[in-house]
């Protein structure tokens, strides 16, 4: 007998959206979340406003969380993780355990140690983590200088409406962003573009100019990748309305001069080397597969690509199918994604999973009642 339960691993934007939609179909969804709270990276990393529509991230995530929680056919297991998986499409048997997350347990509780879920299909929505700038091959000194921060650090300050020079606690006069930190880099091994950092840096640049109007903001970039409406919704306003200065040329080194930082690079379009003082340097760190994505891929036996994201073998026309039939992927677990793509992918994965479990139930029903052999999906 095949199960109509759909197991969703990850309680971030993709997992919550998939759960909500499966619930809306009247089908059972179980969301397994390693942390003790839902909302994924936008909540965990204290995002301020969403790119590209500037909506308050916490408010938007709370809406998703509320929709999933309110759904009577959606069950949520916090502080829980998947430890083993057997079976095949229609009849996966997945064991859960209390997660090793130190923060877990406090208000988790819903997870039952040793629980086994019988699922007809699985959606992996385990997301990404920010690149650790300690691994960058330039000389940015993230762990050396207080005033060198990442996009995530900047989000946290912007969320509190208190963007300051960390070492001084006062509003900065000059801030710069360095793009493509940990992305598009053969030295590091991350040859891909992380897709969202150009937009997020530009969004943050606007927010800094709004919060600290006297502050000059520079963005040092290789290419600005502002596809579709990000162009006119973020990039142009940043340049034209907020006078953010975009300079094509990547900083090679950050040094300290007195109590200020100095960034060294080339202004390539002006054809001149530059050495510019900055109060705060924001590293636009890219996306890497989260620990959860890497662990879950191993446990479920999913093929990973060379960057350890979950491989999507049928690419363009079937972006949610993994190498294992019956297991689907949504969001940044399959590679860098913006929120729009993540949500669309979550909807597609929910649809594929629901369709598969229903098809399997119908074919089992026919099989049991007619002795006709029906083909199980490959």
């Amino acid at each position: 007998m095949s199960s109509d339960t759909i197991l969703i691993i990850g309680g971030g934007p993709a997992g919550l959206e998939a759960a909500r939609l499966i619930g809306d179909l009247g089908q059972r969804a179980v969301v397994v979340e390693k942390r003790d709270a839902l909302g994924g990276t936008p909540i965990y990393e204290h995002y301020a406003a969403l790119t590209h529509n500037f909506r308050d991230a916490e408010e938007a995530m709370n809406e998703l969380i509320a929709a999933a929680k309110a759904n009577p056919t959606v069950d949520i297991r916090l502080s829980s993780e998947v430890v083993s998986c057997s079976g095949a499409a229609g009849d996966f048997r997945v064991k859960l355990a209390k997660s090793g997350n130190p923060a877990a347990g406090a208000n988790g509780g819903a997870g039952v140690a040793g629980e086994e879920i019988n699922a007809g299909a699985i959606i992996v929505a385990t997301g990404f983590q920010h690149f650790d700038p300690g691994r960058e091959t330039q000389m940015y000194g993230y762990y050396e200088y207080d005033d060198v921060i990442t996009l995530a650090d900047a989000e946290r300050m912007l969320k509190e409406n208190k963007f300051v020079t960390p070492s001084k606690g006062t509003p900065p006069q000059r801030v710069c962003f360095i793009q493509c930190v940990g992305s598009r880099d053969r030295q590091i091994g991350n040859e891909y573009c992380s897709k969202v950092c150009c937009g997020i840096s530009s969004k943050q640049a606007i927010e800094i100019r709004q919060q600290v109007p006297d502050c000059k903001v520079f963005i040092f970039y290789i290419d600005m990748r502002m596809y579709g409406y990000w162009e006119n919704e973020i990039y142009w306003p940043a340049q034209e309305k907020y006078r953010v200065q975009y300079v094509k040329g990547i900083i090679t080194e950050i040094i300290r001069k007195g109590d200020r930082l100095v960034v060294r690079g080339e202004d390539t379009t002006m054809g001149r080397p530059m050495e510019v003082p900055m109060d705060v340097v924001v590293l636009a760190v890219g996306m890497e597969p989260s620990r959860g994505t890497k662990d879950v891929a191993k446990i479920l036996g999913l093929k990973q690509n060379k960057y350890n994201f979950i491989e999507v073998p049928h690419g363009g026309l079937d972006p949610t199918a993994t190498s294992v039939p019956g297991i689907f992927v949504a969001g940044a677990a399959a590679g860098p994604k913006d929120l729009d793509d993540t949500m669309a992918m979550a909807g597609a994965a929910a649809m594929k999973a629901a369709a598969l479990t229903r098809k399997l139930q119908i074919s089992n029903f026919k099989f049991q009642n007619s002795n006709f052999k029906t083909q199980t999906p490959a």
Partner: protein
Amino acid sequence: MGLFADKYPDVAYQEKERLWEQVKADPRYPSYLYGCYECGICVAACPSARFYDFSPRKIAQAAAREDIDLIYEQMNDDVWNCSQCFSCNRCPRQNSPGGVITILREVAVKNGLKSAKQALEGYSRIIYKIMGTGTQVSPDMLQPDAFPDWGPQVREVSADLELWRRALPPETLHTTSTGWQVDDKTIIELYLIWHNTGVMDMIAEVDEGLHMILNDVMEEKLEEAGYEV
């Protein structure tokens, strides 16, 4: 403070900033510069860029970045290399680097920058002609030896200039001291425009001598027509 070494460190930053504020205050400025992709289409279209170390892109960039030192440098060294043809207006962001240059030049002239005076020195004779007579270069400027690069026929033509001009069908061209005959009413209107729009003040800033001569010429005609200067 800009991104680069300052080429004019002796000029106070506040002075550079004052000039830049004048540029930004020009009502045309917001529609001449939005933001710059640094794509270079303006340079590709620019005839001056083929002959000089000149880049309309860098003008747009410096302005977009509000790099005050660099703008001051350009206001002195670059803007006079532009031929004001506005081929750069094909910008996908709808910028007009040539328009920004127009404003930069006007601010340079209005503030009597030394570089502006030098750049315009060679033009005083032409300005005198245009503003004095209301017409452009006149036939009698075609002296036998003035433009050897125009070829040997110049000598031939200049010898009998009056006759040649009378051979031209429109009667208004039967003149050698002006490009064409200018109606008194027209010249008076031109003089009034130049006085009332600040052009005469600009001339005074860059070339005092020229301003004096022009003023004399204009004063006489204007007074004849009943206007007080």
